[in-house]
């Protein structure tokens, strides 16, 4: 319990220890700590940014998807409309064609009838002449006359 040289010895060793600690222990540890904390902060920030980017990308993807859905719906609708239109047009065409054909056929038929009538008329007059000749030429025979008339009528 005596105060003696130990005091000074202790002070000197203390000073040396502090100097050593200041020179060789403190700086590397603090540097490592600071670098690590910086790295962690950077990492956290990067993660934050990434999650924000992801959100943005998701939103963008959603929008694109929505747009393309709309587009597709529109295209389909247009196609449907077009198809209906085409069908309608085709129907009209067919109806118009049919009508035209029928009319043409009718006209031809009428023409044929007219022509036949014309021909018949001509033949009737010839027959009438032939009949009259026969009547005038042959003996009057009731029975034969009626036969002729009947024949005439049949020929008409």
């Amino acid at each position, binding site marked *: *319990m*005596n*105060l*003696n*040289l*130990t*005091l*000074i*010895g*202790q*002070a000197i*060793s*203390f*000073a040396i*220890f*502090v100097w*050593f*600690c*200041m020179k*060789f*222990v*403190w*700086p*590397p*540890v*603090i*540097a*490592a*700590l600071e*670098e*690590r904390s910086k*790295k962690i902060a950077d990492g956290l920030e990067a993660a934050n940014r990434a999650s924000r980017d992801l959100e943005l990308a998701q939103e963008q993807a959603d929008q694109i998807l929505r747009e393309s859905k709309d587009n597709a719906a529109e295209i389909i609708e247009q196609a449907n409309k077009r198809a209906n239109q085409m069908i309608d047009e085709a129907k009209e065409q067919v109806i118009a064609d049919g009508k035209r054909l029928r009319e043409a056929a009718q006209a031809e038929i009428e023409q044929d009838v007219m022509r036949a009538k014309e021909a018949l008329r001509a033949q009737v007059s010839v027959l009438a002449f032939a009949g009259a000749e026969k009547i005038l030429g042959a003996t009057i025979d009731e029975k034969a006359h009626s036969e002729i008339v009947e024949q005439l009528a049949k020929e008409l």
Partner: protein
Amino acid sequence: MASENPTASEYIKHHLQNLTFGQHPDGSWGIAETSKEAADMGFWAIHLDTMGFSIGLGILFLVLFRFAAKKASVATPTGLQNFVELMVEFVDNSVKESFHGKSKVIAPLALTIFVWIFLMNLMDLVPVDFIPRIATDVFGIEYFKIVPTTDINAALGMSLSVFFLIIFYSISIKGFGGFVKELTLQPFNTPIMIPFNFVLEMVGLLAKPVSLALRLFGNLYAGELIFILIALLPWGVQWALSVPWAIFHILVITLQAFIFMMLTIVYLSMAHEEH
């Protein structure tokens, strides 16, 4: 031991005597055989046990921390590096909380104080007779005290170093005039009160190292003494007292190391700040 069957007071005295090397009054150099001889050596003697253990522990501290500091990497730290980083961060935070000036010395100083004092205090938990018995029986050394901080010289050596740092920083920050002004013009800022102020401030200034040293020394000395007293009991019941006391002492040694460090930081930050 002084005698084969020492009395209680002889035993206690024996345990409180350092291994002293110095000049005997008759002029010859050597190790003091009795406490009387040690006292007669006066100031020019040295406690070999205190010096040996404190320097050994200091080197242990620095080697461990240097080893970890060298390997300190940014990647995942392990084991020792974790521990060292924990200590460094703890001290760094303590310094940042109470010291606002800029100084490269304060933080390493605080770390050294904390760890070194903690290690020296830790020697208190080694059973009191363990190492002295080995020293006596194996090496023939009569006195051997293994807890450096129970030697007033160790505590005072550190606190005086801190004291010189306080004065150094006071003068280098505020200038010599500023330091003198601080000592003389506070708390009463009139020329008439200068002597009064000076006495008051001087007492305050000198009380810092003394209280710093005595607090550490007193706590550890008392703790050691209680361990010695417990060691006087019959061996079968010693554990009943020494174990609780040792567990409690874990708190004391850490706390004392922490207090010494914190007060050093506070004193030095006071030296840095203008009032």
